């Protein structure tokens, strides 16, 4: 890696996966990117499964991985107390853990989940959406009529730590993603106190097109080089 910037000279963002996840305390709320295993930070999640302090976690993620893979493994390791997401039925382990009272679940429509995260990152306390109105998932939500149409209130979401997956970072922490592996990652990178980004490659400052950077570096605290091949979980 070239050393073109005094900030990177002073302080590289690159961490080993174990070192990065050691920052996660018991009881933490995590956001974890990915749509199933696509775009999930699998190397960081593997390290999390080995970290003694990673327990009693609340995980905000669209799914809880697949059986024994990604967040699915974290669940089997008994580290997840509560999951907030939109689609858990694809992992039978989640269904079982919930049925046995080992896992609390908060189910949100996928768009509401994404918007709540985006709002949390953008300093928005809550918002009104039509999604979920008149359904089981809208029960207990405050309703409001805006310009003659009914909406539901939703609070924004924020996390202690976000674990995201990008394709390339520069040494400052600017991120670009890969195709549909982008999904929740850029939103989550804005909505946590600490952001750990797993990437395939780290390039010198200036190598990324400033018009095409999706996550500006101010959101990113640590970079972890991925040792998990993309699609390894498929």
């Amino acid at each position, binding site marked *: 890696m070239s050393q073109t910037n005094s900030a990177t000279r002073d302080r590289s963002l690159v961490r080993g996966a174990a070192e990065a996840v050691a920052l996660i305390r018991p009881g933490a709320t995590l956001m974890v990117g990915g*749509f*199933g295993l*696509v*775009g999930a930070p699998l190397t960081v999640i593997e390290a999390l499964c080995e970290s003694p302090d990673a327990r009693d976690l609340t995980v905000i993620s*669209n799914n809880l991985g697949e059986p024994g893979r990604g967040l699915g493994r974290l669940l089997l390791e008994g580290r997840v107390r509560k999951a907030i997401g*939109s*689609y*858990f*039925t*694809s992992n039978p382990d*989640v*269904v079982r853990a*919930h*049925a046995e009272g080992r896992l609390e*679940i908060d*189910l*949100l*429509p*996928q*768009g*509401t*989940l*994404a*918007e709540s*995260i*985006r709002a949390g990152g953008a300093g928005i306390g809550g918002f009104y*959406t*039509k*999604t*979920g*109105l*008149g*359904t*089981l*998932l809208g029960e207990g939500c405050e309703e409001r009529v805006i310009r003659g149409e009914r909406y539901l209130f939703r609070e924004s979401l924020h996390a202690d730590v976000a674990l995201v997956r990008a*394709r390339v970072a520069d040494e400052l922490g600017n991120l670009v*993603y*890969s*195709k*549909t*592996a*982008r*999904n*929740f*990652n*850029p*939103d989550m990178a804005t909505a946590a106190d600490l952001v750990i980004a797993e990437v395939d490659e780290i390039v010198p400052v200036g190598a990324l097109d400033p018009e095409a950077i*999706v996550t500006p570096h101010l959101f990113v605290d640590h970079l972890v080089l991925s040792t998990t091949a*993309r*699609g390894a979980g*498929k």
Partner: protein
Amino acid sequence: MSDVQNRIAARVVPHIPPGAVVNLGIGIPTLVADHLPDADAVFLQTENGLLGVGPTPAPEDVDPDLVHAGKQPVTARPGASYFASSASFGMIRGGHVGIAVLGALQIDAQGRIANWALPGKPVLGVGGAMDLLVGAKRVIVATTHTAKDGSAKIVAECTFPLTALRPVDVVVTEAATFTVENGELVLVDLADGVTLDWVREHTAAPFRTALRNPARHEESIDHA
């Protein structure tokens, strides 16, 4: 996918005009892509962050980072774009997706649907169904006319949890097509070989009949 499912998908196609931006739900709706006569003239959006979904790749061309909302490998067409989940659902909720084609477990007499949860079972998955139903300019349901046990899916009132209060615009089955007009179901088309009696017998909701091409059904035979 079965022959019936493909027939339903094919029957959806005439409801999709050239140039439309379309989101295809999981299951039968996904099959619609294979039946579009000029796939190039329709823009498929998938809520996991892609506008311009192309055909399924050959096994050797699969990119693990390129999937549709059903998590199956796809390709991207020229002119495609990728975006984050919040932007994708902004498009959907904001009314920028022209047509959503969704599956359904039940459709009620007003055209409202249940397609995400079963009664008495834990509610552990919803995905993008509610957002698509609330946000798409037009919603087409693509479903078998009856459930696996032969019971009607089109019912006076849904016993399964509703997906939204918003009624769909069109219901397409292998046997019939209904539109939803002023809060009621209108039978507008029968599939070849399907009689009005068959539809009456297998539909548990009231509907009005206004067949667009009634002559075609004068000598129709019973549904196999």
